[in-house]
């Protein structure tokens, strides 16, 4: 039920993805979803069952953090943490608090990342899922704090840490505080790593700027979803700087894979299986039988 509600909410953001009622007179708005890539129309419910991947062209739709959790984790194993943290307006930017509040109501999240514990095929992990529907997934103090606490929790529980990144980068309205979250999350990851614990980063569309240039890129294993946009600087900035046309696939997951920046590009339908295997192979003294 909650998921259906989410989808009705989301159509406000993804106008192009939901067909207008006049184009589908016989079905209520939101029941069908149009692929922004190939224009194929799928029953929203069916799309949900497919993990929000277009059955025609394989386009990976954006997921909300909660959809990602449902798709990835064992049923009802997930328990969120730190939902009570709230962003302040440290630089007193006009309208900032209202924007955060509005996105919070829209997404049902306290900030642009959802964190917690849960299991994948019975194996316990700490997971963080960024949500680009919340201030474009940008990282301010609360996002940095929640990720840092999640990493610390994984260190304490001696379990793997997984993060799904989706972010436009730093949260401008928090100024240098947002920049420093890159360092804060990094010191926590170093401590987690020193304990011999596994960190898997899964880069989803889009992962850019300060998030790309911190935790997203330093997993023991870095995975990405197909076609995800991943990069440090924005395409337009680069084009203005180098004054040359960039290749079509520039800064896509496949481009990064070809340039040695990723371990693998993994289709969403294989993600749970892949992560489960990776986690399993990092259990001390254990491997798959046969």
């Amino acid at each position, binding site marked *: 039920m909650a998921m259906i509600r989410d989808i009705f909410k989301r159509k406000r953001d993804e106008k192009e993805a939901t067909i207008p009622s006049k184009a589908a007179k016989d079905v209520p708005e939101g029941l069908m979803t149009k692929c922004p890539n190939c224009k194929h129309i799928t029953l929203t419910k069916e799309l949900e069952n497919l993990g929000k991947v277009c059955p025609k062209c394989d386009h990976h739709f954006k997921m909300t953090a909660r959809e990602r959790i449902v798709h990835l984790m064992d049923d009802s194993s997930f328990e969120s943490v*730190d939902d*009570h*943290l*709230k*962003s*302040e307006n*440290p*630089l007193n*930017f006009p309208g900032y608090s209202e924007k955060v509040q509005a996105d919070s109501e829209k997404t049902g999240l306290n900030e642009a990342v959802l964190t917690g514990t849960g299991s994948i095929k019975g194996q316990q992990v700490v997971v963080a899922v960024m949500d680009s529907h919340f201030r474009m997934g940008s990282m301010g*103090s*609360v996002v*940095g*704090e929640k990720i*840092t606490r999640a990493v610390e929790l994984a260190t304490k529980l001696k379990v793997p840490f997984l993060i799904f990144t989706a972010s436009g980068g*730093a949260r*401008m*309205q*928090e*100024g*240098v*505080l*947002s*920049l*420093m*979250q*890159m*360092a*804060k999350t*990094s*010191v*926590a*990851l*170093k*401590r987690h*790593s*020193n304990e011999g614990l596994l960190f898997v980063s899964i880069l989803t569309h889009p992962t850019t*700027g*300060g998030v*790309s*240039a*911190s*935790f*997203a*890129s*330093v997993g023991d294993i870095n995975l990405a979803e197909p076609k995800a946009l*991943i*990069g*440090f*600087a924005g395409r337009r*900035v*680069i084009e203005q*700087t*180098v004054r*040359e046309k*960039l290749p079509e696939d*520039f*800064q896509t997951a496949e481009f990064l894979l070809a*340039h*040695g*920046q990723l371990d693998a590009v993994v289709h969403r339908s294989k993600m749970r299986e892949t992560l489960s295997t990776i986690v399993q192979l990092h259990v001390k003294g254990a491997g798959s039988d046969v």
Partner: protein
Amino acid sequence: MSKKKMKTMAFEEPLIELRKKISELKEYTKTADVDLSSEISSLEQRFAKLEEEIYENMKPWDRVQVARHPERPTTLDYLPLIFRDFIELHGDRVYGDDEAIIGGIGSFEGQPVTIIGHQRGKDTKENVRRNFGMPHPEGYRKALRLMKQAEKFGRPVICLIDTKGAYPGKAAEERGQSEAIARNLVEMAGLEVPVLSIVIGEGGSGGALALGVGNQILMLENSTFSVISPEGAASILWKDAALAKTAAEAMKITAPDLLEMGIIEHMIPEVRGGAHHDTARQAQLISGAIRYSLKELEGMSTEQLISQRYEKFRAIGVFSE
């Protein structure tokens, strides 16, 4: 005041005007048979007062101008004045040598140290060579190599930060700009030696932070540290780059701002009007700050150094719960 002709900044204009007036009067008295000495001396007093007013009350945008002054001393200017026996060490051992970052070994008051700093140029030719102080991944990887080397030999690492940011180019993306920066953040967190990061000019975003995960961050009085340039912030937030001056104030990017926010440990005073007025004197002030900070970190075990760095960055953030 320096004798050579120097680029002046907008906020200094009243001073320049007044100085011109004084020298005109002085010139005049040479040829005319009148005594203007009391007028001149009163103007000189006014000049001193005005100078104090202007330089003691610099606005964030004024500091941005000073931080970007073409004559502002760079890493290479300070090196011979602060350190001895500097030997530059090149290359990342993987791809190449990025001259937007220089690094090497030397001694600070008798103590071996590793020095790493952004390096921009002061003229077009030098800026082409140094890529305007905007590093590629190999620059960050060289820096990390030298930090690890310092760790092996137990010597402190001193980083001088002075960059508009990491280079936003095609090749930089292909070679993993994100990963290079991210890797430095994580690895600096674990360094078993004291690390000082000193912002000497512009501290632009992740490209600056990649040399910034120190036990202490120090900033020159007229340096900046920001997530985005004031121009960039203005164009994103208000769709108008001309509002950069407003953004410079709103974004809290100056050394006094960061000191107040508790992000940096110390602010290093600058010679009046900015470091470019007296590089040698400024180098002394930086030396004093390095001496003081190294003393503060002296006697800490490797575990203490790492956990102090952890606590420092762990504490940064403003939120409620």
